[in-house]
């Protein structure tokens, strides 16, 4: 029972990884460009959770900085693609 938290976190990592794989599948089969971007958005948001989980499991706080930068870049990336698609750039 002592390492119950570790086991639960491990299971969460499997769920998150499965989510990433589903998003990647949609990224590949998505018929239009916008579908792929939606998949990419989901992919990056889920990745932030994965980064944080890794930070928790390896006990290193610096991964949280990485997660924040990743959040910023994913937001700006998706907005940039959206503005490009609608011809606003």
């Amino acid at each position: 029972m002592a390492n119950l938290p570790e086991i639960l976190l491990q299971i969460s990592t499997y769920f998150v990884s499965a989510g990433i794989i589903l998003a990647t599948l949609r990224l590949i089969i998505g018929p239009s460009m916008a579908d792929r971007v939606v998949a990419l958005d989901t992919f990056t948001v889920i990745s932030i959770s994965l980064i944080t989980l890794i930070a928790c499991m390896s006990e290193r706080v610096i991964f949280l900085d990485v997660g924040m930068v990743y959040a910023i870049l994913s937001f700006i990336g998706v907005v940039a693609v959206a503005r490009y698609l609608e011809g606003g750039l």
Partner: protein
Amino acid sequence: MEWYRILGSIITLIGSIFLFLGALGVFRMPDLYNRMQAGTKATTLGTILTLLGIGICHYEWIGQILVIIMFIALTNPISSHALARAAHFKGIPLTKGSVADKLKEKESTEVEVD
């Protein structure tokens, strides 16, 4: 027994299940807008819960976790709104059996500005 660690990891597990369901929604839904619905809602709550659980496990990180949660909760809806708007303007259709599309009338009369 470190009860707070168990609580935190259970919250994280719930969050990760929501993340998985969000990705499943993105994979299964029939058209772009419905995918976006599943993607945005489920990933936002999933990320919030996952991060919050880890923040409870490692309570010394809670400040940084809260800032990331705030940022995600603010940016995720904005980015999916921008994407949905662009996709609709681009003419990506709604799925068959959609009831109404009132935006089309507006876009056809939209005066493009610089």
